């Protein structure tokens, strides 16, 4: 039996931890959590949550795989193809994750349990919907106590959403700066004065910012089940009314509708794209610069395929998330700026891994992206193959947009310098070391070139 590898992000909760054996994630339940775990399983809460697709399902493995003296149970949860973090989500995803957490909390309270934490890292998006993944977050409910995780819920969900609603600051950017949640005092200073006239912001932000820690002088305040229900209802009502502020400064959210070179271009590109993927074997794909997910959704049409669609524009990600339905399969939209992708953060830089460590797929798609990286971002053409080879295990579909293209011209209109040479011959020469070109087609009506490439084996 190989040595279990303790997951570096699973160290905070003494109730148990996540570990990896033979590439499969397991979760150990420690003896100290036994009562709560048994209550979760025996009260019917687990079944209710799993049936309602609220909680990740698991199987119990009757073996102490870690040889730990604290062992109580070993769980093998449903394996997730990709892990994403709240600072990579759009406003709508964070709002849905917040509502999902409250939905889980409501179910738990009905079965005399409560969530002892309310971290957005406990939520993952699976098949386009949020899923609660921390089976050890439940503890027996004492109705006389307030919700222990209320402040964490506010700081991690509500406050970033308020900041986007009132100030237009993308929730993902806020959570990049404060990965464990933005404090009430900071939120209160950033929100405009008019927020004091909003009951929700007044109570949850300004009141909380005004009450100092320890101000109950050790006395436990008395609470009740009904009060908790009121609090949950109020939070739900607030969340549903918040509006994304990401229409401010959205560069690409109307790319295909308003600015694209013409409907014919999209049709021809789609035709070629479908031809390329027809016989391509893949179960995972990464669409870089996905815009509103037009091509990501084509990839996700294939049954059993997980597609990660990445774009730096939060408005595009929100639109893609909102328009992704059941028929679109397993599509995960993420707000990532490829020039500043998510770094490795947390304790010892190992708690939350970097973008390129998490997203390596069989197929990588980079449509209308190269000119942005090279002409706007000043990334040398020669650096692109290594970047894309790191993300793809097998195939690459990439579009080259030449300098003569109207969109490329827009990018260099006010620019004096960019890396040269920038043409199709130089592009192909750069890629030859890492990829072999399988197909190459000029998209009719344009000078853009679409390539299907295969990664070369070392």
């Amino acid at each position, binding site marked *: 039996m190989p040595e279990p590898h303790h997951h570096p992000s699973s160290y905070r909760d003494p109730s148990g931890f996540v570990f990896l054996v033979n590439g499969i994630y397991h979760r150990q339940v420690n003896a100290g959590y036994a009562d709560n775990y048994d209550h979760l399983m025996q009260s019917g809460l687990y079944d209710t949550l799993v049936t309602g697709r609220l909680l990740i399902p698991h199987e119990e493995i009757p073996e102490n795989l870690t040889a730990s003296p604290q062992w109580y149970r070993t769980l093998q949860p449903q394996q997730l193809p990709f892990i994403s973090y709240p600072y990579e989500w759009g406003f709508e995803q964070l709002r849905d994750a917040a509502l999902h957490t409250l939905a889980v909390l409501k179910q738990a309270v009905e079965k005399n349990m409560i969530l002892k934490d309310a971290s957005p890292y406990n939520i993952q998006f699976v098949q386009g919907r949020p899923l609660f993944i921390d089976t050890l977050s439940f503890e027996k409910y004492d109705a006389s106590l307030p919700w222990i995780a*209320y*402040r964490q819920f506010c700081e991690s969900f509500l406050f970033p959403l308020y900041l986007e609603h009132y100030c237009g600051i993308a929730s993902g950017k806020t959570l990049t700066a404060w990965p464990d949640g933005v404090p009430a005092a900071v939120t209160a200073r950033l929100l405009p004065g008019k927020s004091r006239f909003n009951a929700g912001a007044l109570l949850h932000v300004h009141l909380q910012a005004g009450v100092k820690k320890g101000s109950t002088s050790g006395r436990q305040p008395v*609470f009740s089940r009904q009060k908790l229900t009121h609090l949950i209802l109020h939070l739900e009502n607030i969340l549903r009314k918040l509006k994304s502020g990401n229409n401010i400064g959205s560069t690409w959210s109307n790319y295909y509708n308003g600015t694209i070179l013409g409907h014919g271009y999209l049709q021809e590109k789609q035709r070629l794209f479908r031809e390329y993927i027809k016989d391509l074997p893949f179960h995972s794909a990464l669409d870089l610069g996905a815009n509103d997910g037009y091509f990501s959704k084509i990839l996700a049409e294939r049954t059993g395929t997980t597609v990660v669609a990445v774009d730096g524009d939060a408005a595009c990600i929100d639109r893609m998330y909102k328009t992704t339905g059941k028929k679109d399969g397993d599509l995960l939209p993420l707000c990532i700026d490829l020039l500043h992708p998510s770094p490795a953060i947390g304790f010892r830089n190992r708690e939350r891994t970097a973008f390129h460590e998490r997203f390596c797929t069989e197929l990588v798609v980079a449509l209308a992206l190269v000119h942005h990286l090279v002409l706007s971002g000043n990334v040398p053409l020669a650096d692109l193959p290594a970047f894309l080879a790191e993300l793809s295990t097998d195939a690459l579909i990439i579009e080259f947009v030449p300098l003569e293209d109207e969109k490329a011209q827009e990018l260099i209109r006010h620019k004096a310098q960019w890396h040269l040479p920038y043409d199709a011959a130089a592009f192909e020469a750069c890629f030859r070391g890492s990829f072999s070109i399988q197909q190459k087609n000029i998209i009719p009506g344009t000078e853009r070139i679409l390539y299907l490439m295969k990664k070369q084996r070392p």
Partner: protein
Amino acid sequence: MIGQFLLYIDPGSGSYLVQVIIAALLGVAFYFKNLWWKFRSFFSKNNKDRQPKKEDENA
């Protein structure tokens, strides 16, 4: 009682107090909201359309 090992996040006693204040205010608000709905539905011709939401009734 909260078990010692369960306190791995800092609940912040201030946040406890905030919850108590908010819950008290919400209790009053929901009370009057329910009264208002009862008042409206009493005088309303079309009671079905003007019933409060189920979740509000439970609150």
